Every structure is written in C-alpha cells, then in structure tokens.
C-alpha cells in the first residue's frame, strides 16, 4: 500500500459570494413581504401602479425568499460543508463562478419580469420560460460541480449531509423540469402542457416538494454539518440521521395532494396525500430531536452564543412547522384552515423560523472563519435573535388567529346548516384586519433583525482580509483492509434488492391498474416477489449487508437510487391522472372552451396575479356550496392552461362568478372596488380601462391551445380579430345601456377581462352513457 500527504486549499471565495448575496436578497425579499402585507391593510399602498400591485409583487416576494434568499444561503452552506466533508476543493472554479453569476442574473431577471406582469400563473413557478431554461441550466452547472467534486473526494464515505444535498439536486431538477413543461406562444409567454386537475396535481407535487427539497433537505444537510460544528460534538445519533434521510426522500414526495383536499381532485389522490402527510410526522420529528439532542452538554453555551441560539430555535421551528403541516393535511382540519391565513402562518413559521434562523446561525458562524476576523458585535447578534424571535411569534400567532377566525366565520351556518351565518365575505375580511396589521408589525420586526445582521456583516467584513481554508489529508492509494469497494451502475441495477423492488412495484401496478386477468397476475406476482425477496435475504443476509455498505461509498449509484425513491411517488400519482383525465372520460360536466376574447381576458387575469387572492374551486363542503354555488367538477377546468384553482381567499371564490353580476358591476369594481364593496382591500385597476388589448399573438395562443388538446378550430389572425370585435361590441353595447351609461372603447383590456369573468362557471352536460365507453 502506498500513501502520501496532500494539502487541499478550499474554494471559499464562492462561499463568501453566496453568503453576501443571501444577506442582500434576504433583505429585498423580506422588504417586499412587509410591503405586500401593508397593502392588504392599506389598499392605497398599491399606488394605482400596475407594477406595484399585490398580485404582481406577491410572486416577487415568494420567489425572492425561496430562490434568492434561501437559494443563496443553501449554495453557500453546501459548498462550504461539502468541500470539508469530502476533503476536496470544488472541482471547478469556473463552474462555481458560472453558478454564482448565473443565479444572480436569474434573480435580477425575475425581479424585473414579475412586476411587469410576465407570469406563468402558477405559484412559485411564475417565471417565464426563458428564465426557466436559465434556472435549469444553472442547476445543471451546480450539479456537475457538486458531483465532480464528489468524484475527486479524499474521504471515501459520504456523510449524511452529502446524502441530503444529493437528494436536493436530483429531486429539484426533476420537479422543476416537469412542472415547467410549457409551449411558448412568444418570447415572454407560454402555456403549461398540463391543464385543470392535471396541472393542479403537478403544480402541488412541485410546490409541496419545493418546500421539501429546496427549503428542507438542503437545510437539514446544513444542520447536520453546522450544528455539530457549533456545538463541538458529533450528531446525537447517526443511525437516526440515516432513517431521517431515507424516510423523508421516500415519503415526502407523496404528500403534494394535501394542498388540494376537498377539491375536485380524485379521492384516492386526496387520501394518499393526507395519509402520507401524517406519516411524515415520524421522520420529521426524528430529525428535529436529532438536531436538538446534538446540543446535549452544550446547552449552557446558548446563553452567550448567538449561533447556537439561532440553531436551537431554527430546529424547534422545524419541529413546529412539521407538526403543523400534517395536522393541516387532515381533511377536516384542512376544511377550516385551507384558503385562510393559517396556511400563511404555517409557511412563515418554516420560512422565518427554520430557514431564516438557520441562515442567520450559519452566517454568524461562517463570518469569522471566512474573513479571519471576530464578529463585529456578538451582542448585536444576540439582539437580532430576540428581535427576530418576537417578530416570528407575533407574525405566526396573528396568522393563526386570523386564519382560524376567518375559517370559522366562512364556514359558520345557521338555521340547521341551511344558511350562512356571515354571508358577506367582506365582513369576514374586516374582522381579521387587526391580525393582518399585527402581521406587518411582526414582519417588520423580523426585517429589522435582518438589517442588524446585515450591519454586523458589513462591519465585520470591512477592512478584513478574506481567507480560504486549507487542510492536509493522508491519501492511501489502495483500499484499506475491511472497507467496502465502490459499486458500479450495473451492479446496482442487477443487485437483488433493486431487482426485487422493481419487479414488486411492477406487479403491484399491474394488480392495481390492470384488467381482471391482469389483476390476478399482478397480485400473484407481488406476493411471489415479497416471498422470494425474503427468502433470498434470509439465505444471503451477508450479501445484502455488503451491497448496502458498498452503496454508501458510491455516489452515482446512490444518487440514482435516491432519484428512483423520490420519483416513484410522483409517477404513481401523476401518470394515471394524466392518462385518464381527458375530455372523453369526463362525466357530468365539461368546460366550454373560451372564445378568443375570453382567452385574452384570462391571460390578463394571470398577468395581474388574481389567483393570489381569488380561488376558482368550490370545495365539496356545505359552506362553500352555500356561499359560491354548486361544487366544482373535475371537467369544469379541463381546458384551463394553467389551472387557476388558487390557494388563498383574500377575496371570494370566482368559479361561478359568470353571469352573477352585470357587466357594469365588473367595470365599476375594477375601476374602484370600494364603490361596489365597501371595505374591500382589492387594488384599483385603472390601467385596464385605458390600456389597449394586445391581440397580435392571440391566433398563435389559440393554435398552441389547440396543440394542447383544447378543441379550437384553426383560425387566422383576421378571423380571431373579427371574433374579438364581435364579442367586444356586445359587451360595450351592454355597458352603454341607459342606467349605466359607461362609454368605453371596445379594444380596452377591461372588455376582455369582463368577457372572461362572465364565462366562469359555464359548462356543458355530459351524458354518463357517452362517457362510459371504454
């Protein structure tokens, strides 16, 4: 055996860059959050300007916090810890710089396009398709840089934090690509390939797992590295961390449908989403306890050490948020909490408490090490902790109170459940206004704390010399005795555990989805696989253990198996729904496609971000039906690219608003909502009354919709223009009737949005006999 000592100089420049970007974008994202929270209390803060309205800024807030703030924090933490855990410098300085500047360019592009109204109309997936391609490209650069570094590692075994990073990289890539599949209609616009319930399912498979694999797993990896470092003791239980990882990767991916409970989503998907969400309690709390117990024997340090304070509070908030999530996934609880501020409070206990405090703890720990200078002010960091904690508690408690209050009021009935106790939606909104104001105060406190951190960073960095870490490793060229050799791809594919798992899943799918004979075959095959797998395991126990040991030191096969673990849940949920949710399979009701003018109006609805406040989904709940009309059917949004079911009701549901009010009502409401609904907090939309409707790309849009399966006949530009003019003329004539006397040009955007809103809820009956053909 030959051996030598190698000196490794880490690339810490990239860590410093991402860390500073995190501080700056964190401040921007939170500032926008405080602004939009203020808008909900004081509608005038929308300033009657399109690019400052709530509907356009809310996506900017969520995208900035997720991708800019937590994204930059995650990259800093991943790059710092990975180099040290695998004892290798990052593989490519060039790729690292491409990663950093590419990501910042994406953030700037998002900050420009979202306020301008360029949006795909799906939450946390609003960015337009050219930026989507940029995100995917930069993510690939990140992945190459990461896996290339693993390939050059001097530490054979992969610490659990690296597992979490691997899970993040491959799962986020899968989620992002599938949910952003679109067909462009222009450089700035596209339609997603999925529609209605398919789009909703894919969206929340992505949306929920963006929380899981962008906001949770990488931060857990960071927790498993930085908490032991800060506490100066190893993780409480390495075994528990292994269970934590695999359980999360396998189970989290199934939970997405809990965002669509009591909706038109097929019942089996709701059941799976709810049940798997409850199963998540166990691994999440296992991980939380592992993090907290790592501080054993170091609790006394929390009095003075801000880093440990932040980490302890962050892990506690992780536990709170992962308790609340499954709770809200129980259908009956969800009936109360969904569409209310309770969900907003839940999200922020995770984002501010878990992500934000982990970021703060990591930054305070890294600063002295990356700039070789003590932190400017420990007492200021401690003050930040307390100001931030009070801010979160105020925010979250206010949102809990607000959400439960509004949920109870919206669901309350009288007269034996036949009448709504609070039929006026505005009444429920105005009741929670004090709580919405407390949210602003809580958010502002948290932002103040972040500014303290930014000042501390500035003062620490000023005049300090950046320093890159180095280490010496003892490299053995041959495999030490007793250690497992790495495993190849083929060996993974044909290993007994993988083969039995694949075959078992295949037979189980045949059992579930096959015809009568195939079902029997599937059942028999599944049972046989289980028996054979157990017999094989029993007789070759040592081989199975050896195979697992070799897998743990083999990054690529490990990554592929992680991908399969994460992909299987999504595939089982999404593929059947995509295959069978077609117009010919719909029973009861089927959506009538939009006319060209209505489609143009819908695009304006998406542009203005109306889905941020209005849902289009009447749930299968009595209070929903009493308030908004008959519950929404699966087929009533089957041509909606993108779906617009929404996730929050700051205003009422619009699924059946068509023909509920006259055209003049909508005109006046858009011009000044308070002239129609006293006390409304909706912004004015004066530009809709003055801006000219752009129909130059409408024929192309209809063509793309036709490609996606919407039954439009081919139309030329002239035919589209004629159809638009004809329908607009009827609306203009109606508005000009005596009594309303609204004079408006037929080519204004307001006409298109009125046409769209008046279409909502229109459907055709489908005979069951016709739909029942195989």
């Amino acid at each position: 055996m030959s051996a030598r000592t190698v000196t490794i100089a880490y690339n810490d420049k990239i860590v410093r860059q991402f860390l500073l970007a995190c501080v700056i974008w964190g401040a921007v994202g939170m500032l926008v959050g405080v602004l939009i929270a203020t808008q909900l209390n004081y509608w005038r803060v929308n300033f009657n300007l399109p690019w400052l309205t709530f509907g356009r800024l809310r996506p900017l807030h969520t995208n900035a916090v997720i991708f800019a703030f937590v994204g930059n924090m995650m990259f800093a933490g991943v790059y710092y810890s990975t180099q040290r855990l695998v004892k290798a410098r990052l593989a490519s300085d060039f790729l690292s710089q491409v990663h950093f500047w590419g990501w910042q360019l994406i953030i700037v592009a998002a900050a420009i396009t979202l306020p301008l109204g360029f949006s795909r109309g799906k939450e946390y997936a609003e960015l337009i398709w050219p930026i989507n391609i940029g995100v995917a490209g930069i993510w690939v650069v990140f992945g190459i840089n990461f896996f290339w570094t693993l390939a050059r590692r001097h530490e054979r075994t992969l610490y659990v934090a690296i597992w979490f990073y691997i899970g993040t990289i491959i799962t986020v890539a899968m989620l992002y690509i599938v949910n952003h599949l679109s067909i462009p209609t222009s450089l700035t616009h596209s339609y997603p390939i999925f529609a209605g319930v398919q789009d909703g399912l894919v969206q929340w498979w992505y949306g929920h797992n963006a929380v899981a694999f962008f906001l949770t797993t990488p931060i857990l990896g960071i927790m498993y590295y930085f908490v032991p470092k800060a506490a100066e003791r190893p993780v409480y239980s390495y075994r528990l961390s292994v269970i934590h990882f695999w359980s999360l990767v396998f189970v989290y991916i199934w939970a997405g449908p809990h965002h669509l409970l009591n909706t038109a989503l097929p019942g089996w998907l709701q059941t799976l989403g709810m049940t798997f969400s409850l199963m998540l309690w166990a691994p999440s709390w296992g991980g939380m306890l592992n993090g907290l117990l790592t501080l054993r024997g170091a609790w006394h340090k929390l009095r003075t050490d801000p880093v440990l304070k932040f980490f302890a509070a962050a892990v506690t908030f992780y536990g709170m948020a992962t308790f609340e999530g499954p709770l809200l996934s129980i259908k009956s609880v969800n009936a109360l909490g969904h569409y209310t501020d309770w969900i907003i409070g839940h999200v922020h206990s995770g984002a501010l408490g878990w992500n934000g405090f982990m970021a703060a703890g990591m930054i305070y720990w890294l600063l002295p090490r990356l700039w070789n200078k003590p932190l400017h002010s420990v007492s200021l960091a401690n003050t930040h902790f307390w100001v931030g904690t009070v801010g979160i508690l105020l925010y979250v408690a206010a949102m809990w109170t607000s959400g439960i209050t509004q949920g109870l009021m919206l669901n309350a009935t009288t007269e034996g459940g036949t009448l709504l106790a609070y039929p006026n939606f505005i009444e429920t909104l105005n009741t929670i206004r004090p709580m919405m104001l407390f949210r602003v105060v809580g958010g502002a406190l948290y932002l103040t704390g972040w500014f303290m951190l930014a000042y501390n960073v500035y003062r620490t960095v000023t005049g300090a010399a950046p320093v890159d870490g180095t280490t010496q490793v003892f490299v053995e060229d041959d495999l030490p005795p007793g250690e497992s050799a790495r495993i190849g791809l083929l060996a993974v594919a044909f290993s007994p555990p993988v083969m039995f798992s694949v075959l078992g899943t295949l037979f189980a799918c045949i059992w579930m989805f096959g015809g009568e004979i195939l079902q029997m075959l599937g059942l028999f095959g599944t049972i046989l696989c289980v028996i054979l797998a157990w017999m094989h395991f029993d007789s070759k126990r040592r081989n199975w253990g050896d195979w697992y040991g070799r897998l743990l030191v083999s990054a690529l096969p490990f990554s592929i198996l992680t991908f399969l673990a994460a992909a299987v849940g999504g595939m089982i949920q999404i593929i059947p729904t995509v295959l069978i949710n077609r117009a010919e399979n719909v029973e009861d009701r089927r959506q009538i496609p939009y006319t060209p003018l209505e489609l143009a109006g819908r695009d304006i609805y998406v542009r203005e971000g109306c889905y941020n406040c209005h849902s289009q989904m009447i749930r299968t709940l009595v209070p929903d039906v009493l308030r908004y009309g008959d519950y929404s059917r699966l087929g009533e949004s089957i041509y909606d690219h993108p779906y617009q079911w929404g996730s929050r009701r700051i205003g009422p549901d619009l699924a059946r608003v068509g023909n509920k009010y006259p055209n003049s009502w909508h005109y006046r409401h858009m011009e000044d909502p308070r002239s129609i609904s006293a006390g409304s907090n909706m912004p004015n939309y004066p530009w809709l009354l003055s801006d000219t409707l752009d129909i130059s790309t409408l024929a192309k849009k209809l063509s793309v919709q036709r490609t996606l399966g919407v039954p439009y006949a081919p139309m030329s530009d002239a035919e589209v223009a004629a159809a638009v003019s004809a329908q607009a003329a009827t609306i203009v004539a109606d508005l000009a009737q005596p009594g309303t006397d609204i004079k408006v040009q037929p080519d204004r955007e307001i006409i298109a949005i009125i046409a769209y809103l008046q279409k909502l809820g229109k459907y055709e009956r489908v005979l069951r006999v016709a739909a029942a053909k195989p």
Partner: protein
Amino acid sequence: MFRRLLLEHWMSIFTLIAFITALSIYCTISFRALRMPKSQRDHLANLPLND
C-alpha cells in the same frame, strides 16, 4: 378500474396502501441503520469535526 380511478374514492384501500408503503420503508431503513457497525457510525458522525 383504471378509468374509474378518476371518479371513485377508494378510501378503504389507499389508506392501507399508504400505511403499508410507509411502514415497510421505515422498517427496512431502521433495520439497516441499526445494523451499521459502531466503527462506521463513529467515523461518519465525527466527519464534520475532523476537517
């Protein structure tokens, strides 16, 4: 059955499928984690402290 997936609820079976799936995953992973040799556990757990 396949087409009816869209229209029927299957509450009685999918809760069981979810439970069995999750339980089998937890048991398998716990078994593997419990069988990790102590030397391997100690080595891995101390990696963050050895840089």
